[in-house]
């Protein structure tokens, strides 16, 4: 297996220059805000995802965490993809990302849906790293549920 399939430039770029990093308060005081903190017990990676929403639009997704390049780049991509989206749309993207990561490298990602998330296609070939990529997405799902929005299919990673 080629290492550059895993460490695509896009991933390394998000890791070195994360987008929207840092936990933020909601701009709109009427928003519901909730967060979830997830850890990967096998390696100690952690991420906190905070969602601010009025119930139909995800006004902000802010995050903080520490961990490997895959988990931290994944949080940056998640922020970029889902921030400002309608909840229904956001969960379609969520589902597509989970499907990609659970596909053992057999799923061809749709760039129109996943944007920079397509760079994680190579990660799906490394079972030990799939959980790293999914960590922020699972935390997002919990945070969104706590903010009263959305359900997404269960992950079998």
């Amino acid at each position, binding site marked *: 297996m080629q290492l550059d399939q*895993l*460490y695509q430039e896009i991933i390394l770029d998000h890791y070195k220059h994360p987008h929207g990093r840092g936990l933020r308060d909601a701009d709109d005081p009427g928003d519901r805000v909730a967060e979830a903190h997830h850890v990967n017990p096998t*390696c*100690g*990676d952690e991420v906190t995802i905070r969602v601010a929403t009025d119930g139909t639009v995800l006004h902000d997704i802010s995050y903080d965490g520490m*961990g490997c*390049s895959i988990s931290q780049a994944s949080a940056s991509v998640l922020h970029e993809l889902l921030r400002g989206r309608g909840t229904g749309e956001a969960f379609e993207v969520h589902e597509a990302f989970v499907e990609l990561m659970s596909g053992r490298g057999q799923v061809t990602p749709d760039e129109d849906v996943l944007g920079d998330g397509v760079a994680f296609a190579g990660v799906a070939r490394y079972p030990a790293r799939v959980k790293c990529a999914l960590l922020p997405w699972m935390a997002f799902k919990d945070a969104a549920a706590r903010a009263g929005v959305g359900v997404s299919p269960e992950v079998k990673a």
Partner: protein
Amino acid sequence: MTSIAIPSGMPQYDDAPRFDVARVRADFPILDREINGHPLVYLDSANTSHKPRQVLDVLGEHYALHNANVSRSVHTLGTEATEAYEGARAKIAAFINAPSADEVVFTKNSTEAINIVAYAFSNASLRPDGDPRFRLGPGDEVVISEMEHHSNIVPWQLLCERTGATLRWFPVTDQGRLDESGLEDLVTERTKIVSLVHMSNILGTVNATSRITARVREVGALLLLDCSQSVPHLPIDVVDLDADYIVFTGHKMCGPTGIGVLWGRGELLAVMPPVFGGGSMIETVTMARSTFAAPPARFEAGTPPIAEAVALGAAVDYLTGIGMRAIQWHEKELTAYALDALGSVPDLRIFGPTVPVGRGGTISFALGDVHPHDVGQVLDSLGVQVRVGHHCAKPVCSRFGVPAMTRASFYLYTTTEEIDALVAGLEQVRKVFD
């Protein structure tokens, strides 16, 4: 390196026992493997060791030729299996210089061995006739250290929760040594047991235990040493160590998984209540109550891992054939070489002792701020297998302010060329993440 001439008549470096590493490597079939197009460079023996053909053959032969249950059959196969199983016990007793084979209890691993002792404490605390050394309650204390593997932390936390006793611990110094400065305050008349790692699985530190042992004796407590990382790598003599219990696991010493050892002083095992109930551990059973067999059977309920125990006996024969002093010396030389080589890598920080004294061949480090997962992944692409993460010793990671570490660990089959491959791989990591 400068060399200093040792006066004649004194022990010379050439007097150290040695063995032919190439010949040893030929005994390990897995070392012929390629990983991602590169020769396997296995630097994860602290996690689990590889198994020589001599052990694999015994494991296969046992099932092929001598398979039967132990301790309950009068037929020939049953007798052969029992003799092989008890023979392995005797070999392991000799390997650690135990005064009697009956002091060797077979367990699943070190974790189970520690849990047996911890549960013996709470079981004794529930019985009015429990031996006072094992009775534990509020006001009593259990002492561990910040350097422990989770397997020597969690069982004691759970024991303290069950009994109301208090858990205390030795801190770790910046150099990765056990901080014994508070010994007198930490180990007191309130202490019932001190349970310490002999060699750290993450820092590589080999703890000098004699001061602690003396204090433990002074206050009348018991001492357990987690020798999971030391029995495979150093000559261990339980009489010399003067501990009350030691635990170790087979798979780290060229044996199979699923077999470990609890060694305990005979007189202590004799008064310890059983932990698991079932077949083989009884003296007599009525519908109302049971009485129990003498150790070691008292602690070996149910059909044990027979073939695994027999193969562990073969592993002990293998290690003894090479010589534990020679293995220790080989790893000392490797450690000195690796500490030097890793010291030449820019931005590399070693956690634990940076001199090859009072430490074994397990070296954890950070490479700049590259996450260990990423370090391990790039190394794997070059065939270099290291462990990354918290190494089941999260308090050690917290102590040094990192969420995870990268660890290279050596064994009798490790070569200096493999350490060179690690150092070259780390350069590659720096290139990817620069």
